């Protein structure tokens, strides 16, 4: 298994095709979201199993590193969704989109749509971070 991991990781580094990066990004954003989700289900379940601990869990989420992570999480979720819709669209209606010469453009458009959706959300979250954790904007 370790040999498999090694082969795969070196393959990731050596691969030169553009389509591979968006494939990797889909996996990384998916794994990142899953990691957060597992933690989030358990910390929310505290409201039933140990409600007195909930304030501590929330305090952790209000810390600066977690708020920055949250901004990243929103990007992961948006990109994973936009790219997932793109994959389904190509599979069902536009198989030509999978052609190799399109890969660069496809990645660029998917990233631009994701970033455009993310920027307003990130703006609000950065505002909240500066307001509540750094006392700006009268926070």
């Amino acid at each position: 298994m370790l040999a498999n991991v090694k082969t795969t990781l070196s393959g990731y580094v050596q691969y030169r095709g553009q389509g591979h990066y968006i494939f990797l990004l889909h996996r990384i954003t998916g794994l990142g979201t899953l990691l957060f989700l597992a933690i989030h289900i358990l910390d929310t379940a505290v409201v039933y199993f140990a409600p007195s601990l909930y304030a501590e869990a929330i305090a952790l989420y209000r810390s600066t590193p977690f708020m920055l992570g949250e901004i990243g999480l929103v990007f992961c979720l948006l990109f994973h969704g936009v790219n997932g819709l793109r994959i389904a669209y190509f599979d069902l209606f536009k198989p030509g989109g999978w052609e190799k010469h399109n890969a660069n453009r496809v990645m660029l458009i998917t990233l631009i749509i994701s970033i455009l959706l993310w920027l307003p959300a990130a703006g609000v979250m950065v505002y909240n971070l500066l307001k509540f954790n750094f006392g700006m904007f009268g926070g």
Partner: protein
Amino acid sequence: MSETTRKVQLKPNYDSIAWKWMRYSAILLIPLAWGHILIQDVLVGVHQIDLNYVAQRWAFWGWRAYDFFLLAFAFAHGVNGLRQILSDYITAAKWRNIMSWLLLFFWLVVSLIGAVAIIGGVRMP
């Protein structure tokens, strides 16, 4: 260029069903998960969230149903995605089998904990 199309009927197996459910759940997760982060992370924000907030939200059964669907579809989608990724690295049938069972167990335990909390609701200390 002329194209020949042919239809192939495959007997559904576990992986073809799982693959379809990745797509079905994905369609549902776009409104469910995006809506959830838009409301909780952007519009409300983590500084407004506390035990009272969760209690008020869950006082309406519709939000409990929303969270229940989100839990069911998002976590299953994620754990099955993890299974697909791990299958790229774990190729021996025996270890794939063990990995799948472990993930099923992990999915079941975490889902049950989440489901009990949604159904049980907030217990004010």
